[in-house]
């Protein structure tokens, strides 16, 4: 029996000001979700994430949430002001908004140390956030999200602008969190490096074009409907590889 959803979108239209970006979206997240949202720029990936997050209200349709569901969000690294005067520990602590006093309690210090340790950056608590590598920055925001003990974790382009090794680290880290029972939904542009490794994908282009495991979703037809361009899908060492069929030859042309 399928678990009851923690967040469910039913027949949702949504957008900004007077223009709709998403139409007729039905989508649900539960504690078993490990879903990647893929699509071209402007297709509505971030809009879908914001609907799940609750920072955007639907123009029509409904968003249902399980009572008391805890959702945490990890922003894109590119949107962060890395020059802000703050240490890693201060950044993680700030999301504990329940405490009124400015300074952290002894229990909070221990909790922050624990979560940083768990994410492999236990010795970086007193560093300024600018002094971290891309992978460490991603871990810091995961720590800030995890300290709120979420049931659902939403991530906006978690591997954007990071190297291959960091991408692997992030993917494994998210798989571990999923194994611990946290539902995960992320957006990604990276079909080969990220999306093909996830158990569940949603292809979006102003509506949900397809949803399912990579084998069912990463097909030339679905990709053409989603991205508006013909792509080939190859098998390499058991993995799906997407290749742009237009190829570089046409440009050289």
């Amino acid at each position: 029996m399928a678990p009851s959803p923690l967040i469910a979108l039913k027949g949702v239209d949504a957008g900004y000001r007077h223009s709709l970006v998403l139409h007729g979206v039905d989508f649900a997240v539960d504690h078993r979700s490990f879903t990647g949202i893929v699509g071209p720029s402007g297709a509505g990936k971030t809009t879908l994430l914001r609907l799940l997050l609750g920072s955007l209200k639907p123009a029509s349709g409904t968003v249902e949430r399980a009572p008391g569901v805890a959702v945490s969000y990890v922003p894109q690294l590119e949107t962060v002001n890395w020059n802000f005067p703050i240490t890693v520990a201060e950044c993680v602590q700030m999301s504990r908004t329940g405490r009124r006093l400015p300074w952290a309690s002894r229990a909070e210090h221990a909790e922050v140390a624990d979560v940083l340790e768990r994410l492999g950056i236990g010795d970086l608590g007193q560093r300024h956030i600018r002094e971290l590598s891309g992978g460490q920055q991603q871990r810091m925001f995961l720590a800030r999200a995890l300290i709120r003990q979420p049931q659902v974790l939403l991530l906006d382009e978690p591997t954007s602008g990071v190297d291959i090794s960091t991408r692997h680290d992030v993917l494994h880290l998210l798989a571990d969190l999923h194994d611990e029972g946290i539902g995960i939904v992320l957006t990604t542009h990276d079909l080969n490096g990220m999306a093909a490794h996830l158990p569940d994908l949603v292809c979006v282009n102003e509506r949900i074009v397809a949803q399912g495991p990579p084998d069912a979703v990463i097909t030339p037809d679905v990709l053409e409907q989603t991205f508006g361009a013909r792509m080939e899908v190859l098998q390499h060492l058991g993995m799906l590889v997407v290749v742009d069929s237009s190829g570089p030859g046409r440009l050289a042309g």
Partner: protein
Amino acid sequence: MEALLDPLQYGFFQRGLIVATLSGALLGFIGVYIVLRGMSYIGHGLSHAIFGGFAAMQLFAASFYVLGAGLWGIASAIAITNVARRSRLGADAAIGVITTASFALGVALFARFGSSGPAFDNALFGSILGITNSQILWLVLVTAFTAIVVFTRYRALLFTTFDPEVADVSGVRVGRTEALLMIVLSLAILVTLTVIGVTLVAAMLVIPAVVARMLTDSFGRMLVLSTIVGAISGLVGMYLSYYAGVPSGTMIVLVGTAVFLVVLAITGVRGMRRTVGLDSHAAPNVKAAIRP
């Protein structure tokens, strides 16, 4: 030592010294949030907007000018915040219109009807003359209110300053927190206006915070350092104003600028690098901006 003690024999200087030091500290303290939010322009505009209320209240209800100008300032602050939140495009222009129109109204009222309270020049450039005990009391009350707000809302203010979108979805009432900050800012500008001067208040919001940012990478330490730099600028500027015979606000700002140059020379490239990104204007609240 004589140079330090001599002016203290005058009551007006004692009151001026207290007010200048406390004003510098208060503006330095709030300035950290203003600078880190890229709101320096809003601080500048707000001080000009409040001048309109200050002038109008002097004319119609001189005894209640603090209250009246305070309400005027808060109304201006809310108008500015709403304009900034609703649309990034044109926000600067709209803020410019609201604040300069209010400032122009103040100038017109002073020119046509004169003043029954602190003089026009004093309001513009600051003065140590004629500071009353009630002004000191108002300054102390606003300083205490500011300290209480920051103490009890520390994390919410920090979170909304650093990352308003995530703060919003993490249970922080971003709109309410921003409104609270704007109220504190307008009250602080109002009670420091007669000593620092309307044209120079914005400088004292920015300079101590920038100096503090050059010295530290920690938010907590930045708050403390900015407050200290503001207080020292007020104290030293007051003495220099007395001996040089120039308006207090100008001297306080010049001392702050001198501190800035000294710290810049000491911290060099590292200090300058830390201030990168402090000059952007306030980004509108994302949630408001994306409302369908």
